[in-house]
């Protein structure tokens, strides 16, 4: 065994993106953590951090959050909407991704292009199109409208990772399974589905997390009862100008998502083994 040589170019290449992420992702995230413990400014923004050389920190926003059920309720509703959106995306995307992955190479490129095509038009215009569509059947401003809009907007983010995964499957595995006695249903559940789990997880993350933060769709398509965390956060920053509360809500959302991700990784590990 030879030890891999330390290559200085590797560091040089990864330095710019690292610096970029440190400056524009990690630093703001830390500032947000700090902001959640600060007082709101008199006219919006934040109150001065130091008064007479003493740091002005408070747990007020957290007390506020945990003191009122309404926030927990919005959180819960948001997670339910995100979960439903993810589920519907998965149910719609899986057959589509499988069809694309199993069609001829030329058809495949065309179909992938069609999946990406909606991105060519503006997101808001597409949501307004849904307003026009959902208006006449009186479905506008309902939870159904919110979820339909969410599914529509996020569907490509489920299709693409699934397709990328399914396209790499070795067709010989299915032949082997069939040869050894597995019917079509069994082949799917024993071979295709378990092998596509990484694609499902990637798609789930790409749909579930953005849906949690989405505020435009509930605002445009949903009713008054369809407020999600995204709306709540946006309101704190843009309407109420309560930056500390907005920061707290964002932070708690991040923590909740990370906890969920950790839980699923742990559950995935625990399931392995056996005959």
């Amino acid at each position, binding site marked *: 065994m030879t030890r891999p040589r330390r290559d200085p170019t590797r560091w040089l290449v990864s330095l710019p993106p690292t610096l970029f992420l440190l400056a524009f992702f990690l630093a703001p995230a830390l500032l947000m953590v700090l902001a959640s413990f600060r007082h709101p400014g008199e006219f919006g923004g934040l109150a001065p951090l130091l008064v007479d050389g003493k740091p002005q920190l408070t747990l007020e926003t957290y007390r506020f959050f945990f003191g009122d059920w309404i926030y927990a309720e919005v959180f819960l509703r948001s997670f339910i909407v995100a979960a439903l959106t993810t589920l519907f995306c998965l149910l719609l995307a899986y057959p589509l991704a499988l069809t694309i992955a199993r069609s001829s190479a030329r058809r495949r490129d065309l179909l992938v292009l069609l999946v990406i095509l909606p991105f060519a038009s503006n997101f808001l215009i597409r949501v307004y199109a849904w307003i026009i569509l959902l208006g006449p059947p009186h479905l506008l401003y309902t939870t159904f409208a919110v979820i339909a809009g969410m599914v529509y907007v996020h569907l490509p983010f489920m299709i693409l990772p699934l397709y990328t995964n399914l396209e790499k499957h070795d067709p010989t595995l299915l032949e082997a399974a069939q040869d*050894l006695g597995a019917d079509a249903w069994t082949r799917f559940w024993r071979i295709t589905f378990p092998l596509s789990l990484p694609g499902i997880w990637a798609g789930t993350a790409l749909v579930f997390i953005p849906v949690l933060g989405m505020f435009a769709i509930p605002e445009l398509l949903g009713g008054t009862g369809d407020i999600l965390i995204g709306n709540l956060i946006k309101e704190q920053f843009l309407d109420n100008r309560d930056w500390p509360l907005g920061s707290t809500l964002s932070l708690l959302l991040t923590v909740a998502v990370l906890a969920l991700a950790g839980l699923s990784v742990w559950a995935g590990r625990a399931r392995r083994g056996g*005959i």
Partner: protein
Amino acid sequence: MPILELRRITRCFGPLKAADDVSLSIEAGEFFTLLGPSGCGKTTLLRMIAGFDEPDAGELLLDGRPLSGIPPEKRPVHTVFQSYALFPHMSVAQNVAFPLRMAGKPEAEIRRLLAETLELVHLSDKARHFPHELSGGQKQRVALARGLINKPRLLLLDEPLGALDAKLREQMERELVALQREVGITFVFVTHSQQEALALSQRIAVMNEGRVEQVGSPEQIYRIPRNRFVADFIGTINLLPVEVLAATHGRLHLRVAGLGEIIAVPPGESALPVAGEHGHFALRPEQLRVSTHGEVRELHNHFSGTLRDTLYRGDVTVYKVELDNGVMLEALLTNSAPLRAKSFAPGDAVTVGWRHDSGVFLHD
């Protein structure tokens, strides 16, 4: 009754005939090999036996019953794929037990057969490993175990040794033969390697362009090739253009163009050609003797020529001799004999000879 019978199977892909009126019968317990160059149709035959493809014409019979219309999952025929096709998300045990689960065997029986089969392929200690943790030879054994565990009527093997390096391949060849004897299951083996075919098989069908050129034991195929394709494809062969002068009492008198007459005693089972027929006389390199001193002149069949080239291979040396009529012959001499090796050099005048019972006459 043969376990598997192919009756006049034809299968076309566009203008290409992958199987052209193929008839074969394979006996129970046999190690049968389909041998041929790539594209000769051997894999197509295998896929039709497995059920992944159906013939355009002809019939396949397993234990006397037609197979047509029965999907692969319902045929008591399992395949070992060239790429092994192990399920990457399943452990060795899960992979090997897969056919039993599909057959709905009870848990106790699965455990018993699994332990037994893993033992058979020396993988008992790898049961909990995943395919990506195994070496090429181990993967190969998992694929074999998975194919054998549910005791299929036939095990089809599609170039299963192709991905292994030379040393490992030889070891696996031995294991494969031993395994087949032990389990007694009929093996249908597909390969393009004549060495593999000769070493493993009880019978070989040599295929070319969708047709079966010859079926026989490895020795028959090697010693008595039926035509030029088989002679050429199996090992190295020297071909002398000849004309039949007479064929009497099991003896052939042949005239080699530009050289002279030879006598041949063809092997009993081949039909004698008739006088006046043209063809080629085929000789294996190891059937030839070469000398500078003329010892080979005691043999009736001998011609003089010039040594053009030698190739030292350690155990043997290959000599290229140009006969006086311009035909090149290849002779193979073992290096144990004291007189060989250094005594020859390119440019030497030599005599090449062979025994009466060496070589076969091939029709054009």
